[in-house]
């Protein structure tokens, strides 16, 4: 295994179809912008790229088959390089990063492009779209009607019951996230909001409100990764990858994902995420105490409380006190989502895992401006997606 460096990162600012930011740009245009930014940041040329690991979208581009990496290569110039199109729902960007990382770490290629971009359809994400009684997702929606926000809301409601978390506390997480987004030129929302704004937004699924849930967005992110040895030809202080891990859920999982699951002894939620984060810690020989900041998948602000507890950063029920005390802001003891997170960006599903790599890189270089985590040395990034997929990556300076 050779050490891997993140040489360059780039993004296209997130937005909503028709707005002044993304307008009617295609996913290929969004990706081209992100890739050109990443190449410039790396000081590299498109012809230096030896392979592409791309996140596969089922929503846009990719010739309808998730061949998003092939779109990118055709657009930037068909050099004949190998393309890996990775599908893992919302974890696809993280998955693509893991594949790119593994190919470089294993010595197969010296320089790889990792990319994810998305133009999302409006409204709540429809799942399979298949009307078949053999499809559990069809059955769940036809027989019950439980869209994504209602799924998250059952978790938020249970947390309120278990730990006394209040709607005000959920709201303060959004206020904190938006305060970070003010300093992030790539965020879709860049305005601070108040707790009254959040509590005044309508319930999407009681107890979660509109401003506590990430909307869908269009956007793209790219990262150029290479061997640490090669990176030294470009820079004296490369950001390196301490570990990258992918995992799936285990049989003891108790999250209400389908129609019904066997009840196990422990109330295990998000086992795929726990497995990925544990694996990333193991591979890096690190633990929560080594992490300067976290970028986690906050489809709803509930996850800023649940995930740090599930990963051993604090005791169950303790995360809301850390948040109340300001410890999860960029200046705190455990900064969470200094980028502004999904709640500020909206979710361009397949771009998210790569967007996190970009944020980690900027933070570790000290280039994050007003949202900078002081003295950031180690960053943890995490995504999870449909099918019980999860990824985690640890970057260090």
């Amino acid at each position, binding site marked *: 295994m050779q050490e891997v460096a993140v040489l360059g990162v780039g993004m296209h600012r997130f937005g909503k179809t028709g707005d002044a930011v993304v307008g009617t740009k295609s996913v290929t245009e969004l990706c081209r912008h992100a890739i050109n930014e990443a190449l410039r940041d790396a000081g590299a040329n498109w012809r230096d790229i030896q392979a592409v690991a791309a996140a596969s979208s089922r929503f846009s581009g990719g010739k309808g088959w998730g061949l998003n990496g092939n779109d990118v290569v055709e657009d930037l110039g068909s050099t004949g390089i190998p393309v890996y199109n990775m599908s893992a729902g919302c974890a696809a960007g993280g998955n693509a990063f893991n594949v790119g990382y593994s190919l470089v770490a294993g010595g197969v290629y010296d320089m790889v492009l990792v990319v994810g971009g998305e133009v999302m359809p409006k409204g709540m994400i429809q799942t399979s779209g298949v009307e078949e009684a053999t499809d559990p997702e069809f059955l769940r929606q*036809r027989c019950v009607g439980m869209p994504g926000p*209602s799924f998250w809301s059952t978790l938020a409601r*249970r947390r309120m019951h278990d730990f006394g978390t209040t709607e005000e506390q959920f709201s303060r997480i959004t206020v904190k996230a938006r305060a970070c987004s003010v300093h992030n030129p790539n965020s879709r929302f860049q305005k601070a909001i108040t707790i009254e704004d959040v509590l005044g937004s309508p*319930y999407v699924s009681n107890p979660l409100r509109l401003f506590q849930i990430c909307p869908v967005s269009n956007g793209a992110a790219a990262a150029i990764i290479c061997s640490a040895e090669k990176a030294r030809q470009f820079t004296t202080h490369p950001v390196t990858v301490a570990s990258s891990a992918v995992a799936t859920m285990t*049989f003891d999982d108790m999250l209400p994902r389908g*129609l*019904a699951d066997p009840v196990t002894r422990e109330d295990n939620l998000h086992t795929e995420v726990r497995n990925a984060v544990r694996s990333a810690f193991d591979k890096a020989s690190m633990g929560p105490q080594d992490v300067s900041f976290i970028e986690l998948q906050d489809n709803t602000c509930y996850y800023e409380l649940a995930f740090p507890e599930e990963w051993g950063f604090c005791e169950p029920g303790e995360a809301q006190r850390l948040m109340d005390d300001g410890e999860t802001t960029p200046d705190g003891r455990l900064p969470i989502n200094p980028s502004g997170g999904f709640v500020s960006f909206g979710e361009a599903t397949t771009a998210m895992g790569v967007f996190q790599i970009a944020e980690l890189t900027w933070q570790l270089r000290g280039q994050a401006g007003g949202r900078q985590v002081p003295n950031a040395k180690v960053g943890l990034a995490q995504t999870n997606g449909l099918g019980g997929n999860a990824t985690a990556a640890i970057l260090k300076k």
Partner: protein
Amino acid sequence: MSEQRVPCVAGLFSETDGKAVVHGSRCTSCNTPYFPKTSHCHNPGCDESNVEDYDFGGKGVLWSYSVADFPPPPPHKYDEPFKPYVIGVVDLDAGLRMVGQMIDPLEAVQIGAQVELVIDTLYHEDGKAHTSWKFKQLQN
């Protein structure tokens, strides 16, 4: 004349003499319950899959709940005008954590409450009431 009731998806659940059940499976080797039916056991710790048909119903405890405040996208179907409904996650005594709509209004629903599985109308189509399984809180 009472309206005709048909399941919204055939073969998943039934109601006889007021007793509601969903049709699932159970592995007799490791005792793992499944709904909907499975052709084989998914437990990686199970050495030999021995799956038989098994009906689940009866009582359970409400683990959590949420509200569909807006109409879910297709393939969900509902009667107009849309009325928000409560969704329950229930740990059935039979060993399944199961999702379903709640009969009870939001104000009445409580985590930890005893509930029972019932069959109830989900929406109307072609002059028939299309049903699904739901949960109903029991009075303590």
